[in-house]
């Protein structure tokens, strides 16, 4: 099979969409936070915590959906911590974000070790199974790629539509967007900036955790250390790539995932002549290129990372 043919196989696109799914959840989560004016660098740790919480719930006998719910709640709790420190207390969003990532990651590993002190190979669970959509899934390539996925992937796409709808079609979405652009506009219309921003960070963090849980309950079937592997940071870049718009960010997530799926297949056909690290690097190098091309024109939320405190001049 040569390098171009890969692009026309269904299995390649099935993989690309699967790889994109956790990125989509987490990117939507980050996008909500940033639209409200809060940079959430806790994303990497919150995804780790979500991955573990989802998996551990199922491993302890819970339902898969219960696992997802627990992951979301754990994410929301870390979101609440982040929001409390950055919004009403006005601490540096960078420092708090990195702190939350370190805390959530370390705490997760710690609890894993406490709960499973003896294991050497990570225990497995029965993950979400593919749920082909009758009719649609038999469309060649396109249908197979999109409609033979697990229910969680479908949910990822629903989350994009929901975030887009909420941001652009609902009163609360207006308030979120205004909070990220000019918080005093929100305050002057009688809405609490603190409330809006904290709510956005909590909900956004829950989405990030669901993205993490996708990895342990849908893409794979166990939890292991380092499994998030920088995906959170990629999502931060995807938000910029998408100019803080859900639809564009979705395209970015799929594009990145396609690069990732492609490099795995290129490794297989290259026959070991090229060092595999070159291929591993490819999606990241291409992301940087894409960011350079796209993000220069991005219009970022003007009040992003600017703390707002009522009654302060």
């Amino acid at each position, binding site marked *: 099979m040569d390098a171009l043919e890969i692009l026309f196989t269904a299995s390649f696109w099935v993989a690309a969409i699967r790889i994109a799914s956790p990125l989509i959840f987490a990117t939507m989560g980050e996008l909500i936070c940033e639209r409200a004016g809060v940079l959430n660098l806790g994303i990497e740790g919150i995804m780790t915590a979500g991955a573990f919480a989802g998996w551990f719930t199922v491993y302890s006998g819970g339902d898969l959906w219960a696992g997802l719910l627990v992951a979301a709640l754990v994410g929301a709790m870390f979101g609440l911590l982040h929001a409390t420190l950055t919004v009403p207390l006005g601490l540096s969003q960078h420092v708090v974000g990195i702190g939350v990532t370190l805390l959530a990651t370390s705490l997760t590993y710690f609890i894993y070790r406490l709960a499973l002190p003896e294991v050497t190979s990570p225990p497995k669970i029965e993950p979400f199974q593919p749920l082909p959509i009758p009719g649609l899934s038999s469309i060649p390539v396109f249908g197979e790629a999109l409609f033979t996925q697990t229910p969680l992937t479908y949910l990822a796409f629903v989350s994009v539509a929901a975030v887009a709808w909420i941001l652009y079609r*609902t009163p609360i979405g207006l308030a979120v967007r205004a909070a990220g652009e000019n918080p005093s506009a929100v305050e002057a219309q009688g809405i609490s900036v603190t409330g809006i921003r904290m709510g956005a960070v909590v909900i956004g963090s829950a989405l990030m955790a669901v993205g993490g849980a996708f990895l342990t309950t849908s893409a794979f079937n166990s939890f292991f250390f380092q499994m998030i592997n920088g995906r959170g940071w990629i999502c931060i870049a995807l938000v910029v790539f998408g100019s803080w718009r859900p639809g564009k960010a979705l395209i970015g997530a799929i594009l990145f995932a396609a690069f990732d799926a492609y490099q795995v297949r290129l490794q297989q056909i290259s026959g070991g002549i090229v060092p595999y690290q070159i291929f591993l690097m490819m999606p990241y190098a291409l992301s940087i290129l894409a960011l350079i091309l796209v993000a220069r024109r991005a219009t970022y939320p003007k009040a992003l990372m600017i703390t707002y405190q009522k009654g302060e001049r």
Partner: protein
Amino acid sequence: MPDEELPFAGSAHSLPWTGKEASPATPLPVTDVSSNPALRLSRISKRFGPLKANEAISFDLKRGEVIALLGENGAGKTTLMNILFGHYVADEGSVEAFGEPLPPGDPRAALDAGIGMVHQHFTLADNMTVQENIALGTQSLWRMRLDRAAAQRRIEQLSADFGLAVDPAATVSTLSVGERQRVEILKALYREARILILDEPTAVLTPAETDALFRTLKLLVAKGLSIIFISHKLHEVMAVSDRVLVLRSGYLVGERETGSTDRKELAALMVGQEVKPAEVSPVKLGAPLLALEGVSTAPYNGAGLDKVSLTLTAGEITGLAGVAGNGQAVLAGLIAGIRRPTSGSISIAGREVADWSPRAALAHGVARIPEDRHAIGSIGDMSVTENVIAERYRSPRFSRMGFLNWKAAGRFAEKLIADYDVKCPSPEARIRLLSGGNMQKLILGRALDPDPAVILASQPTRGLDVGAVAYVHRMLLEARDRGAAILLISEDLEEVLALSDRIIVMSKGRFSTPSSRGERTIRELGDLMAGHSGEHSDHAA
């Protein structure tokens, strides 16, 4: 709102604005509500640290009345209105709207009570449309769908009723300042505001936009709204208000019916003493200090310079008048060292300077008072001390071997604060917390302290109140009498006429022939500014 027909509305609270009658001890009957004033402020006090922003301020706003709140920058006008609207919580005192007490620190309650506020710095989200900005917060946050159609209809209706033309679908970032202000007024009307507070509404408007705003205000009053108009411009206050309240240093120092007072009296109340125009002593010309010879530049913010020549002489103020965008910005940048000439030469005291830069300008004794004190003149989040040494931190007075001498810097800041009568909490305060006039005094002090040879003053009194304007003028004239060569660039013709020993009009990057003090009338200068005369010359000045 006429209430003469109500049988028991009369005598008990007649003349509510005098603030002398006791408030009724028993609750009023429901039908009597209309006799309450629109607003009643009782002994409002607010302090920021040691600074008394408001001190026991009480007044009533009658229905259908326009009150002007007059005061210098930093007199406490904006603080008072922010308390009223719930952005700040007062340390003492209470507010009643239409007879109902207003809970402190709650903008939502103020909105619900019918108070609308047009802030000095607009509170609009630039990335959203007019319609979205107006609808923000007017529909339940838990609705699953924003009712755009209803919002659209209502905005169109209000636009038509009040003559506030603006496209609801336009994104705010594309609107002019005047249009943005209309959106702010529409925001208040959309929420059925019955009291409208406008904080320095004309500061950012062109004269034509100001006239349109005044027409709108008349219409609003005719429809029964009560208005508080905050300003430090006397002619505006005289033009729009029924009653004037004067604030000074946080105290309510005077109250006049607009019909029975005049600009002079109000100015004296506002400043605390009679404001006299600056006295100009006869000019004593010295040596030429700075000369431009056939200088051209690339365009910037309008026209570039087109082979202009200019000599600034010791002991003389050269006034440069002109409509914005005709090259004044480039000329100011050039002399400040920020812009470079594409051709021509710059000489200081007769010697040509080859590498012209901000540092070279400072080293050659050119002091700068920049046009935009917020963007260029100061660094808002740095302290007063840091700002006052910003141009001279390298001098041995403020640093040694690369280490700053904070003691000397602090002493210098304290000296400027004392000498120039700057109102600020401490030298450590962030400079953006200072009012415009106080910030300008510091910048003036920073520029004048080293006794500069050349002073570049760009729009030195823009946005300042009467007292501060007179102060800046006096300082510039004193510097001139000490032998400085001053270039005054101003869009305010009265200012140019009052201060300049020599006036040049700038049009399309070139100079008119200069005229000496009193030679041309304001009208002749206006004609020159409009470019109606062909008397441009290449080697004018």
